[in-house]
């Protein structure tokens, strides 16, 4: 285990501890870091960005007020401290923060202090359980994302298959919340969400399977490694990414994946489960306060996860667009930062695209939604899978020695 050796070197006192204990501790810190950088704060910051962009798109103001002063005066407990905002160092820092940037902090505080309501007719146990299931499903997918070069919390050999499987945990969670709320809107929303998520899972899984077939591995780190070179160039940079390889043929699965991904996280134009004009708020109609915020967090985490999967499978994951050889000499920490930077920028780009789509496109109707999935995306995805298998076969046929025995001897790479 290279990783354990590395930790033993870094922290010599861990040599005496059991291997599994060190490993669990390490993954725990990794997961904790992901939770506290990618999931929780990113949800808040994405909300702020989304509302600013919405303001731009609709020619109105987004949040532009909340600074230190309004944040302090928001709560009864801190209202007395409002004068602190006039004290010099705080005033100086406050003047440097653009108005509205602390909106997400105010929102978080508001959610934290809101009344927690469980409707009288609700199935209390399922009602409480649902956010755990949804959150577990969306957060556990982060376990295998290669957040930097050859660096993911766990290096599962079935990586992408595991992501598809574990993110399906959202479906029972959503059904649970819809059913347990004892509310008609929630029930309809839950059913719609479940049918939509399971339907769109098929084109998504088939287009990801295309990449797995071309790479010959389900491990996320292996898939990233396979994108280092392309068109016969070692360390090809941009050209090695899967969308640009194979003469750009993988653009089709990529587009199918992204459309399906948007539908899987219930974003506009596919936000039928939460269609405000029809279903109030869908499956989380009856949720309030902090309990509701976990659904919200799971939605934004899922958005980021869709971006992260698209990045890893099609856009080279943490690989930079320039040939990787340029920065090979840098110290390890700088290399880690470089990989994380590219992974984050590429993944967050997709979140921004989704936000833009929300304020650009009108909502689909449910029969159009099903039509798009079953009659357009699934046939395209299946057809392209077969085509890419043919392309792969042709390429392998080119590289194989003609004599069958020689082929068998050279097969074990």
């Amino acid at each position, binding site marked *: *285990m290279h990783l354990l050796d590395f930790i033993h070197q870094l922290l010599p006192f861990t040599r005496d501890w059991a291997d*599994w204990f060190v*490993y*669990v501790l390490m993954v*725990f810190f990794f*997961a904790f870091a992901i*939770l506290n950088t990618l999931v929780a704060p990113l949800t808040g910051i994405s909300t702020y960005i989304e509302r600013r962009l919405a303001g731009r798109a609709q020619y109105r103001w987004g949040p532009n007020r909340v600074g230190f002063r309004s944040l302090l005066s928001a*709560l009864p407990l801190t209202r007395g401290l409002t004068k602190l905002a006039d004290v010099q160092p705080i005033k100086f820092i406050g003047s440097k923060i653009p108005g509205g940037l602390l909106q997400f902090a105010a929102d978080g505080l508001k959610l*934290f*202090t*809101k*009344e927690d309501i*469980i*409707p*009288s007719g609700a199935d209390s146990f399922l009602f409480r359980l649902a956010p*755990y299931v949804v*959150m*577990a499903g969306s*957060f*556990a997918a*982060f376990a295998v994302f290669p957040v930097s070069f050859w660096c993911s*919390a*766990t*290096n599962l050999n079935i990586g992408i*298959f*595991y992501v598809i499987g574990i993110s399906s945990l959202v479906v029972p969670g959503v059904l649970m919340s819809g059913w347990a709320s004892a*509310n*008609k809107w929630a*029930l309809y929303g839950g*059913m719609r969400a479940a*049918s939509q998520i*399971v*339907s769109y*899972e*098929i084109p998504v899984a088939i287009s990801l399977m295309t990449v797995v*077939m071309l790479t*010959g*591995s*389900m491990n996320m780190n292996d898939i990233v490694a396979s994108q280092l070179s392309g068109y016969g160039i070692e360390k090809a940079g941009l050209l090695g990414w899967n969308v640009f390889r194979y003469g750009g043929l993988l653009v089709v699965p990529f587009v199918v994946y992204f459309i399906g991904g948007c539908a899987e996280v219930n974003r506009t134009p596919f936000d039928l489960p939460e269609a405000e004009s029809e279903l109030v708020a869908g499956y989380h109609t009856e949720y309030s*306060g*902090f*309990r509701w915020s*976990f659904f919200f967090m799971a939605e934004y985490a899922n958005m980021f996860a869709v971006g992260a999967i698209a990045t890893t499978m099609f856009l080279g994951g943490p690989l930079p667009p320039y040939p990787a050889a340029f920065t090979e000499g840098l110290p390890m920490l700088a290399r880690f930062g470089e990989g994380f930077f590219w992974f984050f920028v590429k993944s967050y780009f997709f979140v921004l695209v989704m936000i833009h789509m929300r304020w650009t496109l009108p909502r689909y*109707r449910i*029969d159009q939604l099903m*039509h798009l999935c*079953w*009659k357009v995306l*699934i046939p395209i995805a*299946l057809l392209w*899978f*077969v085509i890419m*298998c043919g392309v*792969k*076969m042709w390429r*392998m046929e080119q590289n*194989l020695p003609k004599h069958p025995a020689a*082929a*068998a001897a050279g*097969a074990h790479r």
Partner: protein
Amino acid sequence: MRYDYVGVLVFLVLAVGFILAGMTAQRIVSRLLRTWRPSASKLSPYECGEEPVGGTYVRYNIRFYVIALIFIVFDVEIVLLFPWARVFQELYPFYRSVLFWDMVIFIGILAFGLAYVWAKGDLEWVKTFRKHLSPAEKVARSPQKKEAA
């Protein structure tokens, strides 16, 4: 590696622990900050501000079940095809195009199933049960037309 799936467990535990800690912290903080004044109308199901009408578990479209059934078939297909996709490259030198045609036949059967369901009209969200409709009737019954009317 040996401990990889322990890592998954750590993630699941952390996700659950995150909510558990959040809810517990909220419960403690609520003593200081949060209001807690439940009343009968506040705890009743939300139906746009009106008194709730009838029970909650109303009938909903049978289509949801049909979609679930078709989904299961395709999901099993994906489960069976993923291992194939994984080993295609490695086994190709031994089995050559037999591997490819295996997959084509397997997908072909499923594609036939999809075409059958499609032709039967089970992929339509609004299914008509009358078999022979004139083109004019078809237009009249299409959901787009209803929306416009």
